[in-house]
């Protein structure tokens, strides 16, 4: 088994606000110019807040690219979803994000696993995400610090 990527950040917000920002507020902080299928052509990203809801981007031509599907939706504690941006759904991995109240705000833990579905690309993709999630979660944390 290829070990999961696990990241943890503490954000200055209560769990409800941290959860809402991560999910329905995705477009407010996601680095869509670099972390998307259409990159510079990416117009918006979003997450439909319900079990079975899509995580998606919309490019400037209006085409929607689905990144994954929400499997568990338990605000403000847990959201988990399948994940296959830019790839066929049968390469999907799983991302689990949990939110736990901490003294200084909320501890957010992200676990990305199921790399085996990527076959030959599994190891390299995992290493990219290991760096990638650190930057993405830094953007998420910053957006909550700004209090916007």
């Amino acid at each position, binding site marked *: 088994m290829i070990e999961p990527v696990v990241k943890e950040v503490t954000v200055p917000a*209560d*769990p*409800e*606000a941290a959860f*809402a*920002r991560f999910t*329905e*507020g995705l*477009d407010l902080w996601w680095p869509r110019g670099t972390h998307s299928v259409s990159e510079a052509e990416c117009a918006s990203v*979003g997450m439909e*807040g*319900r079990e079975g809801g899509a995580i998606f981007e919309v490019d400037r031509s209006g085409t929607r690219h689905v990144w994954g599907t929400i499997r568990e939706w338990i*605000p*403000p504690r847990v959201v988990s979803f399948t994940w296959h941006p830019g790839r066929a759904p049968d390469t999907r991995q799983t991302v689990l994000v949990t939110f736990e109240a901490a003294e200084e705000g909320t501890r957010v833990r992200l676990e990305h696993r199921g790399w085996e579905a990527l076959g030959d690309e599994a190891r390299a993709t995992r290493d990219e995400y290991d760096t990638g999630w650190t930057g993405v979660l830094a953007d998420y944390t910053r957006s909550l610090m700004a209090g*916007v």
Partner: protein
Amino acid sequence: MRAPAQILDALSDPTRRRILELIRGRARSVSEVVRMLPVSQPAVSQHLRVLREAGLVRAEKKGRSRIYHLRAQGLEPLGRYVASFWEGALDAYRASFDDPHDREEEGP
């Protein structure tokens, strides 16, 4: 005391359920809720009005803004309504247990 139907109507909208979930832990102002959900201020105010009329939230004036609190007791009529089905299910179960001829697998 509101009718269960009015409470169900209020809860039938996913955005209104999200608003209730957001103020469950602590009271929040309209602008705070607006920052948390991808919904405009007029829409949030409208949803809060429906929730208030259904007895599920109460507004507290604080300076120039209003802070919304969850009224958990407002869910009581709906809770009792749902529980009444459960009591019915228990009665039916008991009845089928008492009557040995009333077993599905035996057929007509």
